[in-house]
C-alpha cells in the first residue's frame, strides 16, 4: 500500500512533527518502501489467532492498587523548561496565527 505525500503530511500533523516539502518527498518514498515489505503479513491466515497483547509468560503479579511516590532526588524546576508556582508553563493554546495556519 503506497503512502502518498498527503498521507505523510497528515500523519506528521497527528504526530506533531513539522515536515518541510523536501523531507516529505523523501519520507513518502521511504515509508512506501518499508510498508511494501509488510505486505507479506496480509498473506498469513490469522482468522483463528488472537492478537498478542504482550508476552508476559506468567509470573507477573498484581499489586495493591496503591500509589508509590516517585523517589525524586531533584525538583521539577531543575529540569523543566519553564515552571511557575509548581505548574509547567506552556505557550498559549491557540493564537490567531495558529488558526490561520491550520485553515480553521
Amino acid at each position, binding site marked *: 500500500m503506497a503512502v502518498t505525500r498527503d498521507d505523510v503530511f497528515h500523519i506528521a500533523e497527528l*504526530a506533531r512533527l513539522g515536515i518541510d516539502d523536501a523531507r516529505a518527498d523523501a519520507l513518502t518514498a521511504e515509508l512506501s518502501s518499508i510498508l511494501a515489505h509488510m505486505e507479506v503479513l496480509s498473506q*498469513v491466515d490469522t482468522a483463528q489467532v488472537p492478537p498478542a497483547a504482550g508476552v508476559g509468560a506468567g*509470573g507477573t*503479579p498484581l499489586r495493591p492498587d496503591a500509589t508509590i511516590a516517585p523517589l525524586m532526588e531533584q525538583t521539577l524546576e531543575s529540569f523543566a*523548561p519553564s515552571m511557575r508556582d509548581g505548574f509547567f508553563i506552556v*505557550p498559549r493554546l491557540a493564537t490567531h496565527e495558529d488558526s490561520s495556519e491550520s485553515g480553521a
Partner: protein
Amino acid sequence: MNVADYTRLGAAAISGKVRSGEVAPSDVVRAAFERAGEIGAGPDALNIFLHADEEACVTETKEVQQHLDTAADVGILAGVPVAIKDNIASLGLPTTCASRILGGYVSPFEATAVTRLRANGAIIIAKTNMDEFAMGSSTENSAFGPTRNPHDVRCVPGGSSGGSAAAVAAGITPIALGSETGGSVRQPAAFCGVVGVKPTYGRVSRYGLVAFASSLDQIGVLGRTVDDAAIGLEVIAGFDKADSTSSDADVPIYRVSALGKPAPEARHPDTEAMRIGRSPVPLPPPPDSTTLKGLVIGKPKEYFPESLDPSIRAHCERALDRFRSMGAVIRDVSLPRSPLAIPVYYVLAPAEASSNLARFDGVRYGLRVDPGKGLKSMYEATRSQGFGPEVTRRILLGTYVLSAGYYDAYYKKAQAVRTLIADDFRAVFASGVHAIFTPTTPTPAFPIGAISDPYEMYLNDIFTVTANLAGVPAISVPIGRVRRLPVGGQIIAAHFDEYTMFRVAYALEASLGAEAHQ
C-alpha cells in the same frame, strides 16, 4: 593496579581482589579511566562515552572503601567499574538517549537495575553512546556521532547498544548495561566479540529504562565473558514493585564463579528494601560447564539459509560439534514463522514508539523550541528539531499503522502473527528441546556509512528479533572471526530458563577457549 592487568580481569576477579584488600576500589576506577584514555573512548576517537565523571567516581569508591574498612557486606561487584547505556536513568550523570531532545537532561530518579548494581558495590563510570532512543543497528543514529568498533575503527560496533559493547570490547569495563527491543544487546555483542544477554521479558525491571516499545524492551548485560554477563544479570534480575511487568519468578544463581549471594539491600537499607525483593526459596547450584549430557539443542533450519555467509556457517557448525562432544543431542527443528518477524517487529515497535515518544513535547523536560506562535507550533518545532531522521521515520511509520483505516491491516495483523511466532518457540521447547542455537547475525560488522536503505539496516536483526517478539531469553557468545571481525553464536532458551541458556553458553565458551576469538 596497572592497566594491562585490569583489562585482563573479569568482574569476579576484580571484585575478589577488592574484597580481599589486594586492590583499592579507587585504583580499579583509575585503571578503567586510564584504559578509556589510552584507547580513546572520547568523541574524537572511538566515541564510546557520552558522559563520564572521574571525580564523582572517586567519591563513590570512597563509600565502597568505607564498607570494606568496616567489614560490611560490600556486594559481589565491589569496586567493579560498569558502563551504562544512555537510555537507562542514572543519578549524577545525564540520560539523553543520544538525542538532542534530551540534551543535558539529568534524571531525578534512577533505574532499578542501576540501583542494584550500586547496591552490590559497582561503580558507574560512564553513560555510553547508542542509536538515538535505541532505534538502530549500528550506533550511527546517535545525535552525537557514531561509535567506532574497537576491532576495526572503520566499522560500526552494531547497535543500538554499540557504546556499551565497545566499552567492554575495548577493555574499559568488564560489564556494561545495554537494552534490547529487537537485538540491541546481542547484535553489538556479536560485532564487538563480547558476550551479550537479553533476559526473559519481565526478568529485569524496566523502571528507569526510557521506553521505546514497552512490550519488547528489556535491559540486558554485556560482558567480557559469560561469567561477567551471568554476574551482571544475577544482580539486576528480580521482582520490582515499580514495574508492573516485572516477574516475581525466582532468580537462580547463574554464575560459576564463587562470590557469595547478591545483596541488593546491603547499602540501601531504607527505601530500596521496600522496592527490591529477593526470594528466600532455595535455588539450583550454579551451572556445570563441563558437560551438556542430557540436553537437546535445536538447530532451526530458518536460521541457516543457503544465503548465510559460509564462514559464519562454518563457525556455527564447529560450535554444534562442540555441543555434541560434550554430550548434547543436536536436533533439527523448525520455527516456520521466523521469516515474518522483521515485518511484524517493524509494525509493532514503531507503533509503540509513536505513543511512548509523545511525551517528548517540550513541556516537562528536555528541549523546548518555541517560535512564539502558540502551543502547537512549539510541539512541532521542538519535536522536529529534537528528533533525528530515524526516530522521525519510525514515529511516522508507527502513527500510520495505528491510524484509522490501517490499524487492522497492519497493527492488529502484526499482533496476531506475533502470537504465531511465540507459538513456534513454545512448540519447539514443548517437544523436549532445551535450547536453540543460531548465528547471532547474518554478517560481521559492516563499514560505517555502508548501509543507507532503512529496511536493509532492519535486516541486521533478522536472527535476534524473534526472541524479543516471543519474550524468551537469548545470549550471544563469540564463536570466531570472519575476515578478521568477530561473529557470535546465539543460544535461546524457554521463558525464565536463563539457567539452561547460561549452562550452554559457559560450556561453549570453555570448549572454544581462544578459538572463540580467532
